[in-house]
């Protein structure tokens, strides 16, 4: 029983007290001299090792594929799945806890949460981790109960009471629904029922409410979780449920309360954007979009959902701005598009602007110029930094006619300069947010037509995945000793290669999706890679995006692209290692696909 064994060290933090005792009783400590093999490649795993001190190399043949430091464990997957795919050797004098296989497997068998750590697939591990995150956040949305919501009061009238009485009562107690007593029965009546009765059925005001009461009241207890309420509403297609504490009705829960609780105030932000009648009103909304991100993450909303919500709000914002300031000539004969991460729907924290205007026909220069400047300036006032590459409506090259774009594409492909490939990439990710969306569809079709069959161009395009090569020592940095070591660039090392590799494959196939996960899904469908790998790739991307977003949110003002291994938990480091392995495999697939080695 090494007392020093840290029970908070994942995955052991998932063990119960008695399981931890079993574990402690079974632990030995192994000492390994530099160069000594701990597990040979292909050998059956006899034990689970947890590094106490020192550094262990994970090797595939001669290549070092990973470095493990204190608190890291190996080779859990081999233990569960048979033999070891990698070799493990001490890089320096190393002490490890040694947990015999039989004990480890018994724990895996008895404790599903502990077992999740040993799943072979990254996606399953991530799911398990996400569930745990959700579990561990006290007071998160799904833990909230019906009684925590703000309820409308339970107010009763009789079935003999008139429509007028019902209407006045609703106004007096400020609610939209009333309970109705009819003998032993309890029914329900809403403001909408009253309106319909009066307007559509032309019932008199002094008619009793009885005929319009409905009796299939669905109810929940105050202690029920709000997700039950959500499910119940969805299933029964009701906008309200009654709350009954076992003795009597105590209130009414409306869907709008539930939704605003679940999604933060995104509804309100969307409403604010929609109601805006002048540009300055949008400034508040733009700021609120930024605040939503933090709130959504705090509620453990997954990064892909955050990105979707934020993208939706941003697009609404852009569309509203276009509505407010676009001159008549542009409203019908132009299309406003957002590009880059915004177009892919993967933006969470605001980055710089990537937007463009596509014209159906030439527009009077003075009118166009004014719009270009007004639009870009308004976005700046919202906090969208200007694009360093000047990919913005303000730039005449990014606000021209479909024909002019097409000419530009031919230049890009025939005589590519340093920006051409990135420009193609940016435009390929474009999504229409306002105006005539058909213009963008036409422009993109031209773009794909231009690059089709241009294999030399495609090779150069795809080659950008190697723009930030993973240095041999990359993994050393990642899991340096004691979790120290240099920061790891999530964007260059992981996010960009996935996004761009997928983009390259999608562009070559002429896919119309813009979202990376959607592109992966389509690539799987057309057989570019297997469903399993597609899932791994998507999950790796989401995991990297999550790390990046959380890093950004904790250290405001940074890009979040760099994370220090020391700031990650040992589970996160383990997952990061897995994610980078997936990136590595994916780079290989892209390289082989475009035959990058041959050029």
């Amino acid at each position, binding site marked *: *029983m090494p007392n*020093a064994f840290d029970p908070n060290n994942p995955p052991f933090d998932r063990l119960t007290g008695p399981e931890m005792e079993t574990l402690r009783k079974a632990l*030995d400590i192994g000492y*390994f001299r530099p160069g000594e093999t701990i597990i040979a490649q292909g050998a059956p795993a006899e034990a689970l090792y947890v590094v106490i*001190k020192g550094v262990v190399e994970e090797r595939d043949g001669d290549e070092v594929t990973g470095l493990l430091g*204190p608190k890291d464990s190996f080779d859990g997957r081999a233990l569960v799945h048979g033999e070891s795919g990698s070799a493990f050797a001490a890089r320096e004098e190393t*002490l490890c806890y040694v947990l015999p296989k039989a004990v480890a497997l018994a724990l895996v068998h008895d404790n599903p949460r502990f077992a999740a750590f040993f799943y072979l697939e990254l996606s399953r591990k991530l799911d398990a981790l996400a569930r745990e995150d959700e579990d561990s956040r006290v007071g998160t949305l799904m833990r909230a109960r019906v009684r925590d919501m703000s309820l409308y009061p339970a107010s009763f009238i009789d079935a003999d009471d008139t429509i007028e009485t019902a209407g006045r009562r609703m106004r007096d107690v400020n609610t939209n629904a009333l309970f109705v007593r009819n003998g032993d029965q309890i029914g329900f009546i809403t403001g909408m029922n009253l309106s319909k009765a009066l307007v559509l059925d032309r019932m008199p005001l002094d008619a009793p409410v009885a005929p319009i009461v409905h009796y299939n009241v669905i109810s929940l207890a105050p202690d029920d979780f709000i997700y039950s309420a959500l499910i119940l509403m969805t299933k029964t297609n009701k906008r309200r449920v009654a709350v009954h504490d076992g003795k009597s009705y105590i209130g009414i829960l409306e869907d709008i309360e539930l939704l605003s609780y679940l999604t933060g105030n995104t509804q309100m932000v969307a409403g604010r954007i929609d109601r805006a009648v002048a540009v300055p009103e949008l400034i508040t909304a733009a700021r609120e979009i930024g605040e939503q991100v933090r709130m959504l993450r705090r509620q453990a909303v997954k990064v892909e959902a955050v990105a979707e919500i934020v993208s939706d709000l941003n697009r609404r914002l852009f569309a509203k701005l276009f509505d407010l300031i676009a001159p008549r000539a542009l409203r019908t004969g132009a299309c406003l598009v957002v590009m880059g991460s915004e177009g892919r729907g993967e933006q969470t924290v605001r980055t710089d602007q990537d937007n463009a205007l596509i014209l159906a026909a030439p527009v009077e220069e003075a009118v166009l110029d004014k719009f270009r400047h007004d639009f870009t300036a308004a976005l700046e006032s919202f906090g969208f930094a200007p694009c360093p590459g000047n990919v913005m409506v303000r730039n005449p090259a990014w606000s021209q006619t479909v024909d002019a774009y097409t000419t530009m594409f031919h230049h890009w492909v025939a005589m590519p300069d340093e920006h051409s490939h990135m420009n193609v990439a940016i435009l390929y990710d474009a999504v229409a947010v306002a105006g005539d969306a058909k213009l963008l569809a036409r422009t993109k079709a031209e773009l794909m037509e231009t690059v089709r069959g241009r294999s030399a161009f495609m090779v150069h395009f795809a080659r950008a995945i190697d723009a930030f090569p993973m240095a041999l020592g990359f993994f050393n940095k990642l899991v340096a000793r004691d979790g120290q070591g240099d920061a790891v660039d999530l964007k260059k090392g992981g996010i960009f290669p996935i996004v761009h590799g997928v983009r390259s494959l999608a562009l070559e196939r002429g896919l119309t999706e813009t979202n990376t996960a959607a592109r992966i899904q389509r690539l799987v469908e057309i057989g570019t890679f297997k469903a399993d790998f597609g899932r791994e790739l998507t999950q790796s991307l989401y995991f990297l995006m999550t790390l990046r977003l959380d890093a950004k949110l904790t250290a405001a003002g940074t890009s979040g692209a760099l994370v220090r291994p020391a700031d990650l938990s040992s589970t996160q480091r383990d997952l990061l290692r897995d994610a980078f392995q997936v990136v590595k495999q994916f780079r290989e697939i892209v390289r082989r696909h475009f035959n990058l080695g041959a050029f």
Partner: protein
Amino acid sequence: MIPRALKRLFHQISIGDQSYRFMFDPGPPDEAVAFDCETTGLDVRRDDIISIAAVRIRGNRILTSERFEAVARPEAAMKIDSIKVHRLREMDVGAGERIEAIIPRFLHFVAGRPLIGYYVDFDVRMVDKYLRGLIGIELPNPMIEVSKLYYERKYSDAPPGTTVDLSFAAIMRDLDLPALDQHDAFNDALMTAMMYLRLKDMKQRGVRIARTREVDRPQTTIG
């Protein structure tokens, strides 16, 4: 003072309790036991053992899963005759055992294996004190002193006048071992075991411990 080897021979012949003959057989090859006693003080004659902990080492593995740990009931309680009071005291000290019951179990755990310790001589003499009365022998085991192994790796070629630091903390630091809470007999035994494996390996590979501070000092004054 009679050489220990001679004493060993004498005890082998004179042993009171024949059932402890196994103590004189060599232990399993490649095995040793690191151990540590916590005591009421440093005077072997007057002070008592509070706890004993030991851990077996096989090859390069510390068998923490086969540990020995025992907490002794303070001697003070034993000296009080009254059964009533005695029971009370027993309740006070909880799980403590009589040292007379601990020592035999300890012997069975150790058997003929070499004993490893930090200033192991003190711990051995502490155990011997009880052993003589109980069985009529002293611990016959070979002894391995980690501070001596450490001295060899670090100071055996030091120039005269070098300050020698053999403190437990200095060894831990030089060998870059994880510090556990000290003055818990088991942790001390465990850290001693780690020191032993590390030093044994360094010795086999001919690696020495740099005396950085001592070497640095004259250089910096010259510069």
